[in-house]
């Protein structure tokens, strides 16, 4: 295997990498938020007089101080920078206390006196959907944030054709991203009038929109720069962007740099979680195992603010039948406002919930029919040229679902080990079980949004290369992947390519670094920029040497038949001497996608990835404690740009997916988050995990300029159902609620 490459490894391992809270500025002030702590209320008054007398306090900022818009949002503008009058969630921020030191700001927090009139909250999504329910967001006019559906084939015919019908309800819980670094932001107003922000956020361009809206600034008057961030997993979007906007608000009003660093308590209280789902499935099968129909109703609790609920639930809609080709489908998906802490993007984005249900449902069906669960999957899974439930024909890439499944079956020796499963045998001291799950996943945004990205390659007179793309480094190694792609295209060692510190003022808005789209979109733009750059060089060389440059390798530029034209440095020097800039701007525009909201039909995503994971585990019959023994994953990534980091995504996804399966959940009380810190929210530790095996499958994707696809999310979307299936074979009991709490 190639050695791991990361451009940021040296800084991170030596402690010199600077995250947001590690920065200070002269004259810097500190802000802290005052949280509502109640889910539904009207603010009667906020009395700051006592708090203002507290040592070091400089100012207390309220909603009426906001010069721009109070509310913003990526889809519906319902998320308040500071609450004005109406509290909708316990995570709402009522005021920002700004002081000379953080300790002084924190000390003044309890001195702010808030008078509230409590209003009846709504915590149950079904109750919220009742037409007579009070509106959580009256400006929007409905508690139904969004509705998606699929109507494919003839559901009545599917019912008639079925020999067996299975009805099953599944539920999944709210979970916490638990990025190790809580939110933080540092903002200052520059002498040129630009408000400059660094922050622990994953979307510089989205953050820029939040900041600009709050301050009433134009986008060009806000510059968001990137510093290392301590994890995101989809979770450093709305809340993190708003933390940046709040720091910017303070810095703008006070004309001094302001840092706003969240404690873990603040982060847990306010930040959005993974959507909890209620899913009612009805599936029909023929005696030979063919699925004749799926009817499903899903309700996602979006909480108090829209965030990206319509997009999360859209992915659940498109993938409502898992990776199976089902001829007759009737699917209704509801995203609902409640007064609970809100829900938003989380690695997986609407697929972990659906896969948790479907990958158990197919096993329930196979078992009832007396069929092999692997054969059942083989019969119904999408294959080359299959039509998906949304009427998309899978013919633009290699459909490798069977391949990834076979690789896992072989690696873990599934058929043989299945014979050893305990099924709750009372004579055994330990119950053994093995289980697997498979999935396909639409890549990138799909029909959720406009999907394109850009890259700039700017070669300096000495031949060194500055590279930047519209993709954000969240810790996954995106900068390293872009450097490796450029290195491959230009035939240069990685040491000659520096990834430029990104800024929203340097490169066009490339959308958000989400949806496993970084390597696919940013990598595509990098390839295209490199190709433009090579054509600029080739044109210059042709004029000078009358030789056609075709190959760029090992720092040399060669003709098609291998004749060396000149070195890279000589070509660059030639460009500068001929008034030609070796500078290229490359764009990758994702291929066309389509969607019809009425029918739920369309080419939802331009390409798909395929994965399979299997788990072996042991259950103690007395304590019902689950011990993971082995986990194996195979995912088709198109092409592995940085294999060590691809494997890191596998392992990290498996760990997070296993935590989702076994114990992660955020319980609420009166709409508020009960865990106050990580001691009350169990995360996978090194001793909870078994050794894992990562099988990288590579079928280069014709729609991707770099041939690579994404891997961030596929790796955690099927671990929980694989564990559920293994627990079934260990205990003989089926658990349909996530997390899987074993009961005697």
């Amino acid at each position, binding site marked *: 295997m190639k050695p791991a490459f990361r451009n940021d490894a040296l800084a*991170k391992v*030596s402690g010199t990498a600077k995250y947001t809270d590690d920065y200070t500025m002269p004259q810097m002030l500190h802000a802290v938020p005052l949280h509502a702590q109640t889910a539904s209320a009207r603010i009667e008054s906020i009395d700051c007089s006592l708090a203002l007398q507290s040592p070091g306090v400089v100012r207390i900022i309220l909603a009426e101080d906001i010069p721009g818009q109070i509310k913003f949002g990526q889809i519906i503008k319902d998320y308040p920078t500071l609450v004005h009058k109406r509290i909708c969630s316990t995570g709402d921020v009522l005021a920002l206390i700004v002081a000379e030191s953080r300790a002084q700001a924190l000390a003044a927090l309890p001195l702010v006196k808030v008078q509230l009139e409590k209003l009846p909250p709504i915590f149950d999504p079904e109750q919220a959907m009742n037409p007579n329910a009070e509106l959580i967001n009256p400006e929007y006019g409905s508690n139904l944030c969004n509705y998606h559906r699929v109507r494919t084939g003839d559901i009545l015919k599917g019912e008639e054709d079925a020999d067996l019908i299975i009805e099953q309800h599944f539920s999944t819980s709210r979970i916490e991203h638990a990025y*190790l670094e809580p939110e933080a932001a540092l903002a200052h107003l520059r002498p040129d009038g630009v408000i400059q922000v660094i922050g622990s956020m994953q979307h510089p361009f989205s953050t820029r929109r939040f900041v600009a809206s709050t301050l009433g600034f134009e986008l060009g008057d806000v510059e968001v720069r990137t510093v290392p961030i301590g994890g995101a997993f989809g979770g450093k979007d709305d809340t993190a962007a708003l933390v940046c906007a709040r720091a910017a608000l303070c810095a703008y009003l006070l004309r001094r740099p302001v840092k706003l660093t969240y404690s873990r308590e603040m982060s847990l209280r306010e930040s959005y979680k993974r959507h909890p789902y209620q899913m009612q499935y009805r599936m029909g099968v023929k005696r030979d195992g063919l699925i004749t129909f799926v009817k499903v109703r899903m309700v996602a609790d979006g909480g108090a603010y829209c965030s990206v609920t319509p997009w999360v639930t859209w992915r659940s809609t498109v993938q409502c039948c898992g990776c199976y080709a089902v001829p007759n489908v009737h699917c209704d998906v509801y995203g609902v406002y409640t007064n609970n802490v809100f829900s938003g993007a989380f690695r997986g984005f609407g697929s972990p919930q659906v896969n948790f249900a479907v990958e158990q449902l197919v096993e329930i069906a196979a078992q009832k029919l007396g069929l092999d669960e692997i054969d059942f999957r083989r019969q119904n899974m999408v294959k080359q040229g299959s039509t998906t439930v949304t009427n998309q024909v899978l013919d633009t890439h290699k459909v490798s679902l069977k391949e990834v499944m076979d690789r896992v079956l072989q690696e873990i020796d599934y058929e043989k080990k299945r014979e050893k499963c305990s099924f709750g045998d009372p004579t055994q001291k330990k119950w053994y079980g093995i289980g697997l799950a498979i999935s396909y996943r639409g890549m990138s945004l799909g029909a959720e949004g406009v999907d394109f990205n850009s890259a700039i390659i700017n070669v300096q007179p000495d031949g060194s290369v500055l590279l930047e793309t519209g993709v954000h480094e969240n810790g996954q190694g995106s900068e390293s992947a872009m450097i490796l792609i450029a290195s491959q295209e230009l035939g240069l060692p990685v040491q000659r390519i520096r990834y430029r510190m990104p800024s929203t003022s340097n490169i066009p808005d490339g959308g958000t670094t989400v949806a496993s789209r970084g390597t696919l979109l940013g990598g595509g733009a990098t390839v295209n920029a490199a190709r433009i750059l090579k054509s600029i060089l080739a044109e210059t060389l042709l004029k000078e040497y009358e030789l056609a440059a075709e190959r760029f390798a090992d720092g040399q530029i060669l003709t098609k038949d291998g004749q060396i034209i000149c070195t890279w440095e000589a070509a660059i020097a030639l460009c500068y001497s001929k008034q030609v800039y070796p500078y290229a701007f490359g764009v990758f525009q994702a291929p066309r996608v389509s969607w019809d909201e009425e029918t739920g039909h369309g080419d939802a995503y331009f390409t798909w990835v395929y994965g399979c994971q299997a788990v072996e585990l042991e259950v103690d019959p007395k304590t019902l404690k689950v011990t993971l023994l082995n986990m194996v994953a195979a995912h088709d990534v198109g092409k592995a740009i940085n294999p*060590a980091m691809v494997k890191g995504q596998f392992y990290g996804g498996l*760990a997070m997916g296993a935590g989702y399966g076994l114990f992660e959940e955020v319980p609420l009380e009166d709409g508020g988050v009960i865990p106050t810190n990580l001691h009350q929210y169990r995360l996978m530790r090194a001793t909870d995990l078994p050794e894992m095996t990562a099988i990288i499958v590579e079928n280069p994707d014709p729609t991707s300029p770099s041939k690579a696809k994404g891997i961030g999310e596929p790796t955690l979307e099927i671990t929980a159902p694989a564990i559920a299936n293994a627990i079934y074979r260990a205990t003989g009991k089926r658990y349909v609620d996530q997390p899987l709490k074993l009961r005697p």
Partner: protein
Amino acid sequence: MIIVNGHKHKISEALLDKPLSQWLREDLFLTGVKIGCEIGVCGSCTVLVDNQARRSCKMLVKDAVGHEIITIEGLSQQDGTLHPLQQAFVDAGAIQCGFCTPGMVLSALALLMQNHHPTRSEIRQALKGNLCRCTGYQQIVDAVELAARIMYPETK
């Protein structure tokens, strides 16, 4: 007196009750000490106190008086050459977001000083107090194994 990364620091009365993590970050600018929870459950603020891995957020400055502290900044050589354990983290692909990395490296170092050839299960046990949300720990365990082979090659 507290020795931090080989440098002696005189401690004024006013500092004694400050959390050690804050003193290291704010007064000595050793920001490789990371703050993830401030209640001692995430391990991001781990430092070595007399070669034992300790959570600096759970200690006060006065608890460290008379002791020797090593933070992540104290591991590499003056010329920037990485400690073999740090190099192993780089080579094994054990770093993603990097926020747990300083604490993880220091916990692993405390283990390797005690146990030159730990098993994978012993490594996992030693890193139990350090949370990582990115890597699933697999390549971190690989890194510690690799470092042990490089740091203590002759004995077995």
